[in-house]
């Protein structure tokens, strides 16, 4: 039986709810869920619930950003992490935080990080060019990601705060550990703003099944719509980066998981990717918490361990299709 978008959405959502419940139960300390004491209530309310909500927010942002980039660039390998957009947002965030250009975790931070995200997107467009081949996008992305990563390392090394450099792994690999409601509030505005922008531009993204030239004759001002979509990608990426650092590959994995489920229409890819991304990130985070290590493994490492092989498979497939 072939499922339609709504049925698939409901099934995925049900799995997400179940996994979220599982995610709530794992953590450093065991909790009596029937009769929680005051401390346990604090753990649930101040640590586990924000972590769960943050996972939802970040994953949906990354999933949607990945899908938008793939539709917009007509490129199955485009994703904010690989293409260095997240790296640029993180670079600006780090510069602001560790050089005291803003009071720590000020709410002005997302706005400044947005500049970094936009810079990353623009750089990618300039370096790779529009409708560039997947290889060109990846090459340009690798260059941007490497530059931003090196600049991040340098900034943290030079930062006046002596412990700043130890934070490098957190920003570079992204982590959902030790998050509070504050992080949720940091991520929320960008995501709340970006979803309606993507919704309004959805028909443009579906139309990009055809060439930009044709889309321009279908009633769309391509340049204007493209800029709005890039702004949405920057908002989504920035929101996730300021809250949890750079988590790569989720934005790549989610749209491809949707395709693997047999949904090939851009409509499905666009709207099922956020739910699929939530499912993936919750699974990764639960797994990370279940691994009993002295220090919690950043979830970005697990995402990269799963995502990088997929990228290789996609590149090989791309190479074979051109052979």
């Amino acid at each position, binding site marked *: 039986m072939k499922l339609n978008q709504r049925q698939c959405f409901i099934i995925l959502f049900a799995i997400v709810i179940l996994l979220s419940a599982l995610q709530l139960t794992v953590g450093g300390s065991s909790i009596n869920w029937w009769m929680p004491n005051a401390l346990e209530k604090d753990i649930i309310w101040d640590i586990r619930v924000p972590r769960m909500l943050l996972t939802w927010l970040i994953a949906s942002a990354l999933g949607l950003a990945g899908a938008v980039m793939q539709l917009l660039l*007509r490129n199955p390998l485009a994703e904010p992490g690989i293409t260095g957009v997240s790296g640029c947002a993180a670079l600006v965030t780090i510069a602001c935080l560790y050089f005291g250009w803003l009071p720590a975790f000020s709410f002005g931070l997302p706005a400044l990080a947005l500049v970094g995200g936009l810079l990353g997107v623009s750089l990618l467009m300039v370096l790779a060019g529009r409708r560039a081949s997947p290889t060109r996008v990846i090459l340009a992305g690798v260059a941007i990601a490497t530059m931003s990563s090196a600049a991040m390392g340098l900034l943290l090394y030079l930062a006046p705060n002596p412990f700043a450099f130890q934070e490098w792994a957190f920003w570079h690999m992204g982590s959902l550990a030790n998050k509070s409601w504050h992080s949720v509030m940091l991520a929320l505005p960008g995501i709340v703003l970006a979803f309606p922008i993507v919704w309004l531009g959805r028909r443009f993204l579906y*139309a990009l099944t055809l*060439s930009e030239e044709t889309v321009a*004759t279908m*009633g*769309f*001002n391509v340049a204007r719509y493209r800029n709005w979509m890039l702004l949405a990608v920057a908002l989504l990426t920035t929101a996730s980066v300021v809250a949890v650092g750079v988590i790569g590959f989720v934005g790549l994995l989610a749209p491809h998981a949707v395709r693997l489920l047999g949904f*090939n229409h*851009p409509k499905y890819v666009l709207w099922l990717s956020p739910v699929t991304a939530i499912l993936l990130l919750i699974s990764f985070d639960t797994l990370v918490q279940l691994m009993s290590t002295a220090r919690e493994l950043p979830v970005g490492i697990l995402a990269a361990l799963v995502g990088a092989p997929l990228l290789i498979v996609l590149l090989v497939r791309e190479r074979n299709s051109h052979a």
Partner: protein
Amino acid sequence: MLELDDLYLAGISRPRLQHINLKLTSNQLIGVIGANGAGKSSLLRGIAAVEPQLKGHIRLKHQDWLRLSHRQRQKYLGYLPQTEAPEWDIRIDELVNLSAQVTHSQLMKHLEKYALLTLKERRVSQVSGGERQRALLARATLSEPQLLICDEPVSGLDVAHQLTIMQQLHNHARTHGLVLAAIHDLALAARFCDSLLLMHNGELVQSGEPFEVLTEKNLAHCFGVQAEWFCKDNGVGWIPTPLQAVKD
């Protein structure tokens, strides 16, 4: 219906379009012919308003065509570019109704008109090149545009598909408005088009009925071939036939 006034498009080594002036009336299939690089695509892209560098004026039904918004233009325009490879492996009915403009029954009627009903649930990768081109043409004509522009719609197709597509363009012109199509096959152009625009080096050399345009002199000058018209008495009519390349 369509007036072109001093169209000019700059190119790298030479202008791609040079001072094109033209008036075209409705309900006609106009063939744009010329050798490779003659400016056929540039002219069609210019009229479709996808050449931002285009200079000059275009009026459609006395409206300043280039100053209309994208949405206003879309109400009149259907466009099929030279090469179109759908990025997503969607179904044929989804491809035809990509911009979701019509109801289900209207879509079915349109698919039937383009003989796509039996293919509607197949994916783009599961149909032949000719069937895909038919689906793309069906998409371009879904909103029944008064101005349909097709850049080499029959290139790379087998004879049967070429005839089908040309007949559909002809029908569209008769029922809905003006159709402009770049065509390489001179026999097809002569048989189906009401008039032809002959392009050479970005200039409009001549426009008129096929007999007036496809002269031996024009064919030698613009295509570099020696050609003759052959007549068949089976009702197909006269066919311009290139015989050999003209030596410099």
